[in-house]
């Protein structure tokens, strides 16, 4: 039979979500189902509108990667009202039940990074946190996990916290300025690899690569490369492509009336070499 899947992505301006979308689309093709993708460009209101547009096209199931966990509730309600089951991917919806949620645990990922840094520094050192876009669940959760980890070690101190928009150029500028104001920095944790890579350029330009270890999040290609070269200490790998594939598989099961798990964690992995 013809299955029509709607996929609403938060933004395609970030390779992470391009991977997610590519994974989903590849799986859809393999399974011979139709998939319609819309992109909210990081605007919660635009996401609601584009989900409404998908519902007009009478999709059988909605996969949504929320711009924001709270704001997405309206879109999910609209889908449910139209009798369309919903699967969330990468970020969760808050305060509403969905048929299935597929994501890595960002809090756990943040904590994983924090523990790694503490361990490497012998539980003592000054750390800089480069935050993601304020208000996004990724920034919130990774920050939460990371700071939970930091609180565990009395010798670890977060000496600067600045948002850098998940953006590479901003990551570099913010890091440059932080470097000017702080002579003793032992590590940087960035909420994503883009910012980590920007910070890495700033640190290299300041000639302080040897003193400062950098940990990112996402394991995008450039970051994996940097870890291999020893320029970054680690990156927390998510598997966006896999997430996309799993979401489509789950979606098809839902349409066919099969049982699916409420939450499917996608494995996180700390890449250190």
């Amino acid at each position, binding site marked *: 039979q013809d299955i029509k899947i709607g996929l609403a992505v938060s933004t*395609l301006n970030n390779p992470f979500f391009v991977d997610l979308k590519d994974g989903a689309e590849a799986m859809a093709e393999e399974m011979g189902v139709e998939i319609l993708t819309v992109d909210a460009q*990081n605007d919660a209101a635009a996401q609601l509108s*584009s989900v409404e547009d998908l519902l*007009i*096209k009478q999709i059988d199931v909605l996969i949504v990667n929320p711009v924001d966990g*709270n*704001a997405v509730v309206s879109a999910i309600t609209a889908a449910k009202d139209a009798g369309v089951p919903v699967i969330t991917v990468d970020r969760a919806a808050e*305060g509403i039940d969905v048929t299935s949620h597929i994501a890595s645990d960002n809090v756990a990922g943040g904590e994983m990074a924090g523990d790694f840094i503490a361990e490497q520094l012998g539980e003592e050192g000054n750390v800089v946190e480069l935050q993601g876009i*304020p*208000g996004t669940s990724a920034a919130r959760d990774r920050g939460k996990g990371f700071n939970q980890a930091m609180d565990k070690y009395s010798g670890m101190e977060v000496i600067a916290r600045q948002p850098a928009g998940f953006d590479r150029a901003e990551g570099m500028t913010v890091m440059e300025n932080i470097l000017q104001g702080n002579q003793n920095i032992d590590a940087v944790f960035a909420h994503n690899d883009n910012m980590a890579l920007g910070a890495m350029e700033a640190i290299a330009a300041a000639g302080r690569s040897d003193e400062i270890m950098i940990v990112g999040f996402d394991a995008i290609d450039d970051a994996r490369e940097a870890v291999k070269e020893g320029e970054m200490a680690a990156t927390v790998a998510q598997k966006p492509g896999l997430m996309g594939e799993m979401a489509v598989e789950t979606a098809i099961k839902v349409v066919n009336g099969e049982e699916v798990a409420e939450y499917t964690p996608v494995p996180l992995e700390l890449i250190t070499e």
Partner: protein
Amino acid sequence: MNNLNNNINKKNVIEILNKFKTGIGLLILVTVLSFMSPYFLTIPNLLNVVRQVSIIAIISFGMTMVILTGGIDLSVGSMLAFSGAVTAGMIVNSGLNVFVAILIGLAAGTALGLFNGIAVAKAKLPAFIVTLAMMTVARGFTLIYTNGRPISGFDETFRFFGAGYLGRIPVPVIIMFILLFIIYILLKKTPLGRYIYAIGGNEKATKLSGINTDRIKIAVYALNGFLAAVSGIILTSRLNSAQPMAGEGYELDAIAAVVLGGTSLSGGSGGVVGTIIGALIIAVLNNGLNLLNVSSFYQLVAKGAVILLAVFLDRKSQQQ
């Protein structure tokens, strides 16, 4: 004689076409889309589109007035976010009654707009810079107030304004049409409206005609802040969440709607009916491209191209 008559008729036809050309543009777009997608010309989808347009439309009404006076307001998106956040905060954090909270939210937007107006009218600063600064400052306020986190969790009363219906008609659509009607009347039938056009046409002459132009400009910017607040509250209610980054970039959509609707960026001519059509063109385009499953990157190109084309055709027809 006959010839003359013909000429007059031809001229009249052109004039009428000119007057409604934005509408005609919209009609053509709608026709094309209804051939290309079977989903497009259905009642649910059309309701869907007008509901989607309401947020941008309401700010572009205010923007129309500002631009009519020869000004500009880049801060609408930030004022929208701030008012939404304040309203949400009053409900969720301070536990105020929904209506009181809404009043406070509206007052917040109006106050920011008032500040813009005073800086433009009294301190004689360029509107572009004043509102650029306000865009940054109000965003900062919003982030500080929300601490960068969305504020969520409203009861049904509040959700009514953004997500409710009266009959089959979504509440935001009704609010939008009421505001459209009020502002249309204000612009066309009241002295304030006339003065708005006069200031955009020739501020000096208007002042020398005994009109307190400063007060009118201040009123217009304040009103614009108020309308941004209305939009912000509707959006917050519709999303069930006040997003600190809400409304980012909306100023450009609003300005595009105003200009597509035939209001001159240098002020003095145009109106709010054109603006709603301009806003609809943008919304229909977004909706249509989604229905046609155009990839979002190509959508950007298409959107830009259509705006350019529309303004180009508008210019052409004026030259005739």
